[in-house]
């Protein structure tokens, strides 16, 4: 009996907490991707680059003298403007090409990713950088060590997810986004300013991704190719959750990271990725559209 409770308290519970913090990280990293995917039908290969830009931006602002928590809204604003301009100046021009849409946007964003990555390297150098942990120290709860910054990440993550859900599912802007995602022509003919909605949605996606980069930088550190880290996991989460579904991304993000964390108790770490991919294959066989449906379609 004692052994069981020890196992629960000292092994299982901390591991699930670990899974939860990783889940928040993954969900934050995937939110922007799923929104852009769901509405614009753009496979955004520059997603990882936006994640890196957010982190570098936070670092630059920190060096200028902003406090870490204060600079987060600034990162959101700058990234949103960056996203809006990119959509307006670049992505929009290759969006209208009908059947080629996937290929043209994929090539464009892939090229964009390379440019951004090299720009980061040119400006900040190849060395690994890391902003200081803004909330150091840890709390002990039921004998578990819970670092303060991870607790902050979990709360911030939950707030951000809730805010995004409210925006998408409960506001007029969200209704227009969902309408445009469901049927662009019909939405336009009913008076939805589709072009602006596209720009704003892309901006929202980029801002969320940049915020994720800024929030996670003190934990995962910053280097030019950091975007590759979460790119694959974010795509898996988006696919398992259902293309463009915000609820789906949240559910899949937490599910997959719990699977990963708990699996690492019993199998060798190298099996982490194969297990995640096996879950993805299984979900796709059972529900080809992912756990939840496409944005605007349910």
């Amino acid at each position, binding site marked *: 009996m004692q052994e069981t409770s020890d196992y629960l308290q000292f092994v299982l519970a901390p591991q699930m907490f670990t899974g939860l913090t990783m889940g928040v990280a993954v969900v934050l990293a995937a939110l922007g991707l799923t929104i852009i995917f769901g509405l614009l039908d753009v496979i955004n290969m520059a997603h990882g680059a936006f994640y890196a830009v957010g982190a570098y931006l936070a670092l630059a602002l920190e060096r200028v003298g902003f406090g870490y928590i204060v600079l987060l809204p600034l990162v959101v604003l700058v990234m949103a403007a960056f996203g809006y301009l990119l959509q307006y100046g670049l992505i929009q021009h290759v969006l209208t090409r009908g059947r080629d849409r996937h290929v043209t946007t994929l090539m464009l964003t892939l090229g964009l990713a390379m440019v951004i990555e090299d720009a980061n390297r040119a400006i900040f150098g190849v060395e690994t950088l890391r902003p200081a942990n803004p909330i150091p120290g840890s709390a002990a709860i039921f004998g578990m060590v819970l670092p303060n910054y991870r607790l902050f990440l979990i709360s911030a993550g939950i707030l951000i997810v809730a805010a995004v859900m409210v925006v998408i599912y409960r506001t007029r802007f969200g209704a227009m986004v969902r309408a445009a995602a469901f049927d662009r022509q019909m939405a336009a003919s009913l008076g939805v300013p589709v072009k602006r909605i596209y720009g704003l949605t892309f901006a929202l996606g980029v801002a969320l991704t940049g915020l994720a980069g800024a929030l996670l930088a003190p934990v*995962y550190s910053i280097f030019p190719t950091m975007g590759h880290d979460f790119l694959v996991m974010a795509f898996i989460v988006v696919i398992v959750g259902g293309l463009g579904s915000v609820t789906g991304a949240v559910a899949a993000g937490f599910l997959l990271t719990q699977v990963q964390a708990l699996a690492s108790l019993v199998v060798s*770490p190298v099996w982490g990725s194969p297990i995640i991919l096996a879950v993805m294959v299984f979900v796709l066989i059972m529900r080809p559209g992912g756990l939840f449906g496409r944005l605007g379609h349910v």
Partner: protein
Amino acid sequence: MKAINPFLAATMIVLCAAIPAMAEEMIKIGVVTPLTGTYAPIGQQVRWGMELATKEVNQSGGVLGRQIQLLFEDEEASPAVAVQRAERLFEVEHVDFLTGTVNSGSTLAVGQLAERVGRLMATTVSFADSITADQCSPNVFRVNARASQQSAALAAWVSGQKPNPRVFYLGPDYEMGRSTVAAFAARMKDLGAQDGGELFAPLGSQDYTPYFGQIRAARADVLYTSVAGNDSVRLLTQMQEFGLLTNMLVVGASGTVTSQNIKAIGDAANGFGTGVGYTPAIDTPENKDFVQHFQTSYQTDPDLYGADSYGVIYFFKAAAEKAGSTDTAALREAMRGLRWMTPQGEKLMRAGDHQAEQPIYVVRIDGGAFDIVGKVDGGTALGADLCTRF
């Protein structure tokens, strides 16, 4: 068409005639080292070290009255590319000596090539023990410390700090990670340590926290790790976040914490110990001179690669002067058992396996800088000669 100035033309002809004559007299040293890619920072140190030593040697009259010329080629940290570039240097440029290889696979492959074409080479960076053990070659020399020298020194120091410790091993899951852990674990076992468990995480892991339960459960006194680059940043800072660094001595491979990632690790690096063949902190007049010259020339500190690459030029100079020529057989004879001066002090090239013997330093990070906390003499760290080919 404008007529060519006859004076200019005459000057050109004289110059053209003079260039081959000068090239005749120069000693050519080929340097195949990574100038691009992940290992480019290492290649940069190699290049700086060699260029600094060459400049000094040439200014003081050269080797056997001849100037040294360095010919660089990009290794790209790939054995296949290294062999191709080395072949060009040997066959087309007719270099007298080859050095610079970083990747251990490149050193082994270029070593075989050197044997085939009857020339000599030396590595100043490669760590793999096999280069001067079971895969030793009569044409290959190593002037830097090999992995087992570093781990021997570190193991001896760890046992002094915590007698009969319980050690947990964490390595990146590929050949280097597994071999470094196996080598260190074997040494610690000989010194009476208990095995607290081992773990191999994928290269480039984002989050090490899923493994912390296992590390905690092991109740280890010492953690040995051979992760490198960004992985070190994440492992150490995340361990600090979860309070795992207190009450545990953390040691690792010499590549785990370097000048490249020490700033990002910050105070989570404090207390980390490792064994190295060189550190700028070595307190000798020769080293202080070297560090000062290096800093004036390149505005940065030399690391172990820069120091050993500086040393190899003096190794070649000492050997060529002892042999009186750059002929392969004479040069090899001169190199075997050679004693020569380096920033680390005098080194001995062991004749039996072509491995340099040198003192190994145990360094520990304190406030972002490496402090020397221990020194193991060359003979103890080097261990037995395992080369049976010559």
